[in-house]
């Protein structure tokens, strides 16, 4: 009678009972089986003894990781700087958007009165002004969006960097040649400020690996929410974390 399927079922139930995970019905069935099975009675005794040994015996020394681990994490100071940089970026974005809107309005009212004196590459002066006003407005919106959704900010910076570099050279030449008023060049500094604040924000935001990058998809349901479907045995997967991949780890 040993090792029958009845014994196997009883032993699984006894194992659950040792962990306080068996219900009253199972306790009753265990008692009924044990009354007629000496082997399972012995097994119950041994399993209880071994459980005690495993719970108390398998001790490993515990090191203190607090300083090593928490020291490496970004602290509140870095966080605070990040918040300040984002607020600054938002303010610059607002200023830039206002500048853009004002020059757009100016260009629009101007166009009614003036006859285009110049035509460059198929665009009248009025249209060139529209273009630059639209670009300035767009930059303001981009700064505001970057302050809100910092994840996308890093992609903006190379564009801005190139724009600023080219504009700096051209502004220098134009200033020397007297083709531009200094006040106009000074207004470009708003873009430079936005660029620098954007850099500061990107540097304080946690590495992109720490969160879902665009295109990453949650692979598995998060635990804890709702009842777990009792699917038939599925091998424990060693699949990567939702969103995580090996490159997440430094």
């Amino acid at each position, binding site marked *: 009678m*040993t*090792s029958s399927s009845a014994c196997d079922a009883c*032993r*699984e139930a006894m*194992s*659950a009972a*040792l*962990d306080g*995970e068996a219900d009253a019905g199972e306790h009753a069935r265990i008692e009924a089986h044990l009354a007629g099975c*000496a*082997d399972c009675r*012995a*097994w119950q*005794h*041994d*399993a209880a003894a*071994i*459980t005690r*040994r*495993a719970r*108390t*015996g*398998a001790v*490993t*020394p*515990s*090191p*203190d*990781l*607090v300083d090593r*681990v*928490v020291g*490496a*994490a970004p*602290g*509140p100071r870095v*966080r605070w700087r990040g918040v300040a940089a984002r607020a600054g970026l938002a303010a610059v974005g607002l200023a830039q958007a206002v500048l853009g809107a004002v020059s757009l309005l100016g260009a629009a009212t101007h166009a009614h009165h003036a006859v285009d004196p110049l035509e460059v590459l198929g665009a009248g002066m009025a249209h060139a002004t529209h273009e630059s006003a639209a670009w300035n407005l767009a930059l303001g919106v981009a700064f505001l969006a970057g302050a809100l959704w910092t994840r996308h900010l890093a992609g903006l910076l190379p564009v801005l960097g190139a724009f600023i570099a080219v504009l700096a050279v051209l502004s220098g030449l134009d200033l020397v040649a007297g083709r531009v008023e200094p006040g106009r060049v000074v207004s470009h500094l708003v873009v430079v400020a936005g660029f620098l604040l954007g850099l500061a924000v990107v540097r304080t935001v946690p590495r992109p*690996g*720490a*969160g879902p990058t665009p295109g990453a998809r949650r692979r598995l349901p998060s*635990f*804890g*929410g709702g009842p*777990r*479907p*009792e699917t038939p*045995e*599925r*091998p*424990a*997967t*060693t699949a*990567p*974390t939702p*969103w*995580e991949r*090996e490159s*997440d*780890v*430094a």
Partner: protein
Amino acid sequence: MDDARITALALRARDGDRAAAGEFVAATQAQVVRLLAHLADPSVAEELAQECYERALGSLRRYRGDAPARSWLLAIARRVAADHLRRRARRPVAPAEPAEDDRPLGRAPQSDPAESAAVRDALAALDADRREAFVLTQVIGLSYEDAAAVCRCPVGTIRSRVARARADLVDALGEPSAQRRSG
């Protein structure tokens, strides 16, 4: 420390409270190291625990507190162990086994070292899935439900793996009475 408190610490750590992050690590590190020692390798458990916390603190931002933080953390530890075993399998170097029983055991043990070595060896010899279920529920002390959450498998699977691990341990470590007398 109970799960609710650990979860509260994790949420405060997520919101930038560094002291809470320290307490969270202090409250959970013994279990993380122990789990990694059993699932991966005692000689690198500490190193892996550090890796586990780096991953955990890095992804704390997306922790919402709907699962106990301890289960969430142990699930990360489990993946760190799996990644370690995969890395090790890829480039097999003879691991320098430190004479573990010669090491000072710190504040931990009140039990006989020979006894604890015997238990450890028996656990190490178990099938990996069974060992994982057994260690999570017995050594770490999780409920079947929490262990199932850590392993992302049904509760019934944990239950049967724990029972089989127990049966294997009875065979490996059992007193004479464990041997089937009636063949």
